[in-house]
């Protein structure tokens, strides 16, 4: 199909974006990579009066590191700052990202196909908040910080509060998501990312991601997040707690699986039933945890 009529406006600075948002309010849509927005326009599911192209706003495609473990001796994790216009392919192939947060690079590589990743941006993906989107899942898992600009100034929102409900975020009508800060995944932290989809490149039916921070072979902190079992990606703290303070064992994995199956509340759709999603959530989480454990170079779970 073809898009409905709208005015195309191009912003050349963050201030200009904010001014245009103030002027047009909810009738405006921001266009970054367009890999979610343009299909919705083509399907005429969205009918904005104005589309504001932010692709030319300078500096929003930057990647920078602070407090990387190489330069910080203590155990405080460093952070990876991503401008909203960083494209998925950049995220997947950037050496800085792969070194500082290999999980994020791995997740980015699973987004769609190359032509989609060439255009799609991290800001677009986070703001769109598809229930099985890879980046919202990782943001929730690592509790990334999302940075917003509005007429009053700037604010940052933790992922736990940013992803509100199905395709909805905390971004206000007059706000621009300028970027996100992901904590470093240090070399003492194992990570795993698992997706189940019918074909490569499809939206996942269920996706699970996990990290295990070790301290002398003992799990200091475990994180588990799952997408595809609710309106937004979710952390599973109860299951995480089961893993704290020991080495990963088969018994623990079984307990984690039970805990997730009992606590998640998926719904059925044309791609999968609730039962299957619940089952897959448990399976993928265990696989992600096993992958995480193996990445800590401690061997297979005992």
């Amino acid at each position, binding site marked *: 199909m*073809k898009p409905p009529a709208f005015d*195309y406006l191009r912003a050349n600075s963050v201030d200009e974006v904010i001014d245009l948002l103030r002027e047009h309010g909810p009738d405006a849509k921001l266009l970054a990579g367009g890999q979610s927005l*343009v299909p919705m326009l083509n399907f005429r599911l969205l009918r904005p009066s104005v589309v504001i192209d932010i692709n030319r706003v300078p500096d929003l495609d930057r990647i920078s590191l602070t407090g990387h473990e190489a330069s910080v001796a203590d155990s405080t994790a460093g952070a990876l700052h991503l401008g909203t216009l960083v494209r998925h392919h950049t995220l997947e192939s950037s050496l800085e990202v792969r070194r500082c947060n290999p999980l994020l690079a791995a997740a980015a590589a699973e987004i*769609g196909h*190359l032509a989609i990743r060439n*255009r799609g941006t991290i800001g677009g993906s986070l703001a769109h908040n598809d229930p099985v989107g890879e980046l919202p899942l990782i943001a929730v898992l690592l509790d990334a910080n999302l940075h917003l600009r509005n007429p009053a100034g700037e604010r940052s929102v933790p992922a736990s509060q940013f992803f509100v409900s199905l395709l909805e975020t905390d971004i206000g009508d007059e706000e621009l998501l300028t970027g996100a800060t992901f904590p470093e995944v240090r070399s003492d932290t194992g990570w795993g990312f698992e997706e189940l989809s019918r074909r490569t*490149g499809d939206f996942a039916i269920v996706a699970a991601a996990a990290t295990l921070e070790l301290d002398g072979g003992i799990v200091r902190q475990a994180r588990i997040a799952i997408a595809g079992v609710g309106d937004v990606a979710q952390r599973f703290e109860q299951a995480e707690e089961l893993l704290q303070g020991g080495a990963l064992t088969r018994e623990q994995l079984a307990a984690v699986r039970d805990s997730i199956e009992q606590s998640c509340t998926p719904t059925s759709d044309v791609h999968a039933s609730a039962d299957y999603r619940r089952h897959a959530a448990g399976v993928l989480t265990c696989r992600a945890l096993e992958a995480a454990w193996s990445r800590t170079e401690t061997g297979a779970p005992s």
Partner: protein
Amino acid sequence: MTSKVALRVTVNGSKYEREVPSRQLLADFLREDLGLTGTQLGCEQGVCGSCTVMLDGDSVRSCLLLAAQVDGAEIVTVEGLAQEDGALHPIQRAFWEHHGLQCGFCTPGMMITALDLIAKLPLAEGSPELDQKIREGIAGNLCRCTGYQNIVAAVRAAAAKMSGQAEAEAGSTDSRESAP
């Protein structure tokens, strides 16, 4: 609300200055305004890959871009692959010779994708993952005729030829000789 946007763009080496409607898709601009109908539309939602073109060296879906967005950019479509004298690009030659197509509808997008893939991924000859990488790389382009087997063979051959050519350079192919 039929606002128009000024557009200056280079397509297949030629410069164009046009006014385009705000909502016009890049694919429609190429097909209808420039008459470059080699780029095809199969789904208009970015899934089938038929409309894939090269934008500043990256493969992109031209159904998911507004024409207005490509102001100042350089675009290559299937019509821009052959040399001016008609000599086919190695990727075209490989698809022809390996019968990497049947109806030819998905072929332009498939070849553009393959070119981006060859440029971005290390597709070392003889590597055991080579075919799998090619398969993953073209998985965003649907073909309903070929079952992909000859397409994989064509991409593999083109990648080998192009890496050889990069070393030797000067490897011009003559499109007038017939395929073996």
